């Protein structure tokens, strides 16, 4: 295990970490009743049902959010490494 990771463990869960957990829960609500009910209607946008668009849209947003999260963790890791070297 690289040293920087061990250091990261010592950092208690930050607000940012909690924010990601919140996003996961938020996503759960987005993909369930009653929010789902809003988009559960017989309507095509550009030929694609609005419900399908919505589900895939939330999904893509979640993937983007996860990617941003991972990048942030990597940046934090680099900072930690720098701090250790000082």
């Amino acid at each position, binding site marked *: 295990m690289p040293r920087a990771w061990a250091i990261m463990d010592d950092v208690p869960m930050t607000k940012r970490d909690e924010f990601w957990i919140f996003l996961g829960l938020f996503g759960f609500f987005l993909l369930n009743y009653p929010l789902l009910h809003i988009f559960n209607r017989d309507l095509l946008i550009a030929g694609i049902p609005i419900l399908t668009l919505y589900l895939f849209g939330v999904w*893509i947003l*979640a993937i983007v959010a*996860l990617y941003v999260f991972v990048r942030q963790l990597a940046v934090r890791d680099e900072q930690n490494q720098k701090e250790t070297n000082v």
Partner: protein
Amino acid sequence: MLSQGLVAVAGFGYLLLLFAIAYYGDWRRAQGKSIIANPYIYTLSLAVYCTAWTFFGSVGKAATQGVTFLTIYTGPTLMAFFWWFILRKLLRICKENNLTTMSDFLTLRYGKGAFLGALVTVGVLLAVVPYIGLQLKSVSNTFNILVYHEIISPLTTPVYQDTALYVALILVVFGILFGARHLDPTERHEGMVAAVAFESIIKLLAFLVIGILVTFGIFRGWGDLFTQIRQAPGFQHLLQVNTGPHNSYMVLMVHTVLAMWAILFLPRQFHMAVVENTEERHILTAMWLLPLYLLLMNLFVMPIAFGGLLLGFPPSQGDTFVLRIPLESGHPYLALLAFIGGLSASTAMVAVTSITVSTMLLNSVVLPLAIRLKLQERLPPYLLTIKRAGILLVILLGYITYRVIGPSAMLVDMGLIAFCGVMQLVPAILGALYWREATRWGAIAGLGAGFLFWAYTLVFPYLVQAGWFPLSIVEEGPFGLAFLKPTAFFGLTGLDNLSHAFFWSLFFNVSIFIGVSLLTVPDPVEDEQAQRFVEVFEFEERLPRERRYTYLPNLEQFTRFMEKFIGPQKAAEARQTFLHQIGSPEREWSDQEKQRLGSFVERAIAGSIGPAAARVIMEGYLSSVGSRMEGVFDLFGQVSSSLEESKQKLQRRVAELSVLYEAARKLTSSLYLPELLEAVLDLLVERLGVEKCSVRLLDEDGMLRLRSYRGLSPLAQDLSVKPDIGSLLGECLLTPHVISVSDTSLVNQDRFQGLLEEEILASFVMAPITTETLALGVLTAASSQKGYFAKEHVDFFQSLAGQLGAAVRSAQLVAHQIRNPVHAIGGFAHLLYRKLPEGSPTKKYAEIIIKESQRLEQMVREIVETSVIFIPREEEQDINQVIRGALGIIRSSIEEKKVNLIVELGEDLPPLTMDVGNMKRVILQLVANALEAMTPGGTLRLSTARQDGFVEIKVADSGKGIPADILPHIFDTFFSTKPAGPGLGLPIVHKIITHHRGEISIESEEKVGTTVTIRLPTTKPGP
């Protein structure tokens, strides 16, 4: 239509390619150049989540129920947000304890009894067996469609003509070759991971190709397909949800929750995500890449499903649209590609699942059973065979399920049965990770109830449907008890079967788990594990708790022992790993290393046989090699580790208190500073095991000078330093406060200024020696153990330094008080001496006054300046000269005491290298002691003589003598038979003589007298 031969050859060819990849992967691992140790392969290996159910079943589901299938893939995406917290923790615990299955994980956390592991294993086995049946069904169906254009029902085929049976047998070989060629203590199969990752690429590509063919080749894009299906009669409901009980919002939610946990805890997911993980940070990439993979995998599901429906295929054939569309539209080779894709999905799932479940069976069922039957000694040669048999068993059970209930259920149903079964593990696992109060009985009761309700409300109805049980049980309830109906328990209706089973099983599982946990008390081992699991990140730095054995076999014996379980090659590797970890050869090991070896071996074999069995077998082994196993812990064995810690703390506190007490006593018993300091440092070394300690005092010129030390070699250089606030010493003195450094490697080197190099060990503490208003110096103590001086010990050093401060200050005050009168006496004596005429006897007396006052001044100075004792000025001197000088000083006392003095100084003694001041002090001390022991009229005899290689000095008196029982302690510090007096004690005499490389001995007889003999070596041969 494709010929049977072509399809079979393509299938076999593909499997051979997979073997080649797997062998290459294993070979690279053996070379130490892993091909799977990168985040992308890790992500692709997690895509084993997508099975034939995904490949064929999603389309089937989309064709009948619309978008509900998506939840199986959005669930894992939501879970990815929590991976960094949950999965990483799981990973850390499993790697630390070398856990290779979920049952081992739960067994270790909830006490090492066998029952829980067996329960988990049986539950998981029941859950995944139909799931494996599903894969067999899919491979066999797709094969038959390609070759015969129809699905052949197993009900009408004899077993030996059933394609699925041959598929099953091929998969058994596949599983054994991938996962059970040899026993691996880490249960890692890099070759298999490589093959699975490859299959993940193939299945995604195959599905995308078919999707593009349907969407853009046969139809004109997504819009076209959706618009057409909306206009087609009878399919509108597929574009929406909540149109019936099968796609209600409730179903969507249940699916989402099941999928969220399935991505972590399905046996194959656990194996890939945890056991085969090579680096924690690979999770980070998988967190976004795996959801992306799943998204791509689902992009064309609806187009294929709707395309099939629009082409006129019946919805009931939805499971095979992926194959039928290219076949019917004149692309047989694309159909073959789809077959290969489906084959990839199935084989990956079956191989990984059968291997992991077989490991669980071996570790949690077979071995505990063997131990119960006392067969463990005979088992080792058969371990590999048992594992292979386990793979065979799991896959054949899958086949039997397929023949029994397969035809009556769609692909998707069997997958959801497995999801819901695995879901039962979630409360116990989350409890293990985050809830310290969770107990073994809570876990057993919760899991038991969960599995029971899952089996009764979800699996049982399928068995009824298959004709195993009378239909009346489902329709009217068992024994006519309507409230026990498996699909409407307690009269709960209006839910689909899955939601119904999900609710009841988890309702009982969670509430019983929590309730029983709160009502039962964990045993100490369990409690300790709970802490280690819940606080795994905090425990990082600590060594695993070792059990204590009175006798431990050596490395060679242990290696042979390991060989039985993991094979000679792996045992040799494990041995190397351990030696590497320890970093020192076996002959230098202490008990601690041996115990670490014991635990290491246990963990190593735990990898192949599970922790419960490993523990029993280790204990059995240790007792069989002739060692007496001293319980698991020592006298305090049953006390939990936290209590044991406080016991150690308590002991140390007692030692500290006794040091403070003794120091207080000694500090008041003498005013002689060097003695005081020595005594206090002695106490620190003897009572507290401090390795190096020293006292530095502030000189009158403002320099901090080293005065006394223990464990440090005296140095000739000037040991004084100007206290600078930037250095630790200066900070400690000037602020003043106690400084404790638990790890010196974290402190900037510049701050150590003034400390001796040998003083800077792994940790140290320094306390300012102060009175209320003055800072006098610094007390330091160092240890080569990191963190030796905890926060609580700071108080102790503070009070000790405070005591020292008071003593030093009073010695200083006394010295100052005496010094001025002595100066005056000396000054006036000089005056007198000069005024008196030459030759007058009074002048001689004045001379004596001058000499005596000089001696007194010297002594006073030495109260403050101690270094002269230990850093002597050495010069060559005739010992007789020294004795004469000393006698000149003390003669008046002798005369006053009215004793006879006989001086017999040997002729032509060689000159000795010595510190004249100290040697004179020795003579004075011995004479003073003798005078004190004698009554008037006694005889004091002082003699020197040349012996072979040394000079002997004798001081003999005719005094009261020293009692025989005291004699051996006469040189001990602070041992005195007389009431506390000033003067130098015998210990200081001893120290000085030793410093001159000489010897001192005392002979004494009560009421006859005492003779002190000193022998000093001659450095040069005499003339």
